């Protein structure tokens, strides 16, 4: 490569590198240092302390937050991708109905977060919610059901709303991937006597493995970053039953002005997410290599 080419190449990537440094590395470094700093009444008092992490370990709510976050991220991602795969497979079938559905399914994406949260909040309300009243009138429940007020229901109810909101794009991405699977491979499997499930498992799935991995990782990141939906619908309640990392970090930093602890939680959140994604990618890459060596 000529020297001038090298300079040009560096010049071209410089804006991206600068943006990443300014908007990703910089804030991450700032949060990491703040997590190791004692902050008292908004003033930084002493760097190099683990007091924020110790405070988290002693916080009785934090254990519940971790459990709820696991349901939110892992449960949400698993269900979002599983349901998305099912819906995507259905949408991949060529028919007039699926043609319309491919457009209609994006409606939950069009609505703003606040509108979605408020609409679901009222539909699920114990006294006036249409969903509880319908279930009651059909005989599934004797009394009104407060989906958002019942600590046993609230977390999974939030996950259902989350799936309604996030699943359509997952379904469309997987639908596109499924439609790109070569017909001759499926036809060959059919001629070899493979049934529908076997064709899906041994032909379609390996072909869409890359899309499936990408969409799983993206969903996990989306769901981790999702704040408006749980905050507006429950505010972390009742009795912290729906308190997750995103809402608790917000509460610690902007309601309690406890920035050190909030930063410590952000660091833990980042490490957990990075570990899960790394593990997932590692397993998938191994699986791809073994598929390739067969």
């Amino acid at each position, binding site marked *: 490569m000529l020297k001038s080419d090298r300079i040009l190449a560096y010049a071209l990537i410089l804006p991206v590198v600068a943006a990443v440094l300014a908007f990703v590395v910089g804030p991450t470094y700032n949060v990491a240092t703040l997590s190791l700093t004692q902050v008292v009444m908004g003033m930084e008092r002493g760097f190099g302390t683990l007091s924020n992490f110790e405070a988290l370990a002693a916080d009785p709510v934090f254990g519940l937050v971790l459990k709820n976050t696991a349901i939110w991220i892992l449960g949400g991602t698993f269900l979002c991708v599983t349901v998305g795969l099912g819906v995507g497979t259905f949408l991949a079938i060529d028919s007039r109905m699926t043609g319309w559905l491919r457009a209609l399914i994006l409606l939950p994406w069009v609505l703003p977060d606040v509108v979605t949260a408020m609409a679901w909040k009222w539909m699920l309300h114990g*006294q006036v919610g249409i969903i509880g009243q319908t279930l009651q009138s059909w005989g599934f429940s004797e009394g009104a059901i407060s989906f958002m007020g019942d600590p046993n229901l609230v977390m999974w109810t939030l996950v259902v709303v989350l799936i309604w909101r996030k699943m359509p794009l997952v379904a469309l991405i997987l639908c596109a991937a499924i439609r790109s699977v070569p017909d001759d491979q499926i036809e060959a499997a059919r001629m070899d006597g493979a049934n529908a499930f076997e064709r899906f498992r041994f032909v379609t799935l390996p072909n869409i493995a890359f899309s499936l991995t990408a969409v799983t990782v993206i969903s996990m990141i989306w769901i981790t970053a999702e704040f408006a939906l749980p905050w507006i619908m429950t505010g972390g*309640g009742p009795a912290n039953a729906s308190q997750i990392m995103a809402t608790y970090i917000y*509460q610690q930093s902007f*309601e309690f*002005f406890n920035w*050190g*602890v909030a930063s410590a939680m952000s660091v833990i959140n980042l490490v957990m997410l990075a570990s899960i994604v790394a593990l997932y990618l590692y397993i998938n890459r191994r699986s791809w290599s073994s598929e390739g060596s067969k």
Partner: protein
Amino acid sequence: MSNSINRRSFLKTTSAMGAASLLPAGQALAASGEISVWKFGGTPQEVEVWAQRNDAFSAANGDVSLNYSYFNGQIRRQKILAGFQTNRLADVVIAFGQDIPEFAGFGMIQPLDDIAGDRMAGWKDRIVPEVFESGMHDGKLYALPTYVDMASFLAINLDALEEAGFDRPPETWEEVREYAKAMTKPDRPGIAFPATTAPVDINIFEGIAYANGGRIFDEESGKVTLNDPGVVDALQFYVNLIEDGSTPAATSLTETFFRDTAQLFGQGRSAMWIGLSWLNTPWGVNEGIRWTGVPMPRPTAPSGSFEPVNAIMDGTAMLMVSSRSSNPEAAIEYLDFWSQNEQLEIWGGQPEIARIPAGKAAWDNAELKEAWPNWVNAYDAGTLFEGGAPMPRFIGVSAIESALGTAIQQAVLGQKTPQAALDEATAAAQGQIDLIRG
């Protein structure tokens, strides 16, 4: 396009500069330039009228350019904090009285005593002393109040009251339980109270607990006192109402915040509800529903360790000046404008009747007397603010109120007894307070 300066504009500019240099030195102190104002929260009517009166300010102060923004009250802390951290905080912030100690402690707002000069005398003259006090912190005025809200009050459906055979509102906690039971129908609970973690819902409970001699924090000792008998028994009162079968399902109480509770009452879906002093006035009630509001009845024998109060109060439109304001003269001019009777009259019934007015003159208003005769009579008799206290306000108040909110929900849902829930909340909140205060 040419950027060159023509002769006429050159002459205009130089003559204007020359004239300005010849002005007496005193003119430089007159308010001019730009100020930014952030207002947080308020009833729909208040928000509308505030913007209209801002136009009057601009008309009266042609040299001041007003840059006004309105935001939802729920986001005020993060908005103000972010503005402060990034040096973009507005010159004037209109927030809640409960925020004052933290904002002052973090150096976000400045004492008005230092910058208001002789305006202070006029403010004191026009504003009810007890309400004026609500803007004070550590002996200095940090915020100019325009009204206050009081906790706690009880809204009563008059038809339901009469149907149940009562001719007057309840006067004690025992009577509230008795009335609520009698007013309960299969499709309409006798009483509802909001029990989410929204700050107003917690303030409503605090009003009941403080009337029972409870406190959430002892400033002198620095100890969280959520498990004081006054607070525990107030929470037991909530639990008793649920166990009596007089309320909506407990799970519904924990998902329905104050505004929704008011709207359900307005639709005839509950016979009474416990709220702040404005009760249903901001949103009204359905046609055909007759209702009244009374101070929340108190226990016959308060059990708390502190002095029982008649009510707790706080303003939610208190004008504060940022410590980083680049134009404090114009900011004070804006505050002074809002201290005038023409503005304070807004809460005297023209048009807003949901709040307790700060202006002395507003209390002479006939519309206020018609809407809230009991308030006006008590004010005239000098008893309206008797035994009143500010809503909890100190550095770390949000952390304690959050722990209290969780404890209320745990007790309401039957997960823990009030004592156990508040013991746990006390320990958790003390940890947070120690961390924040260092």
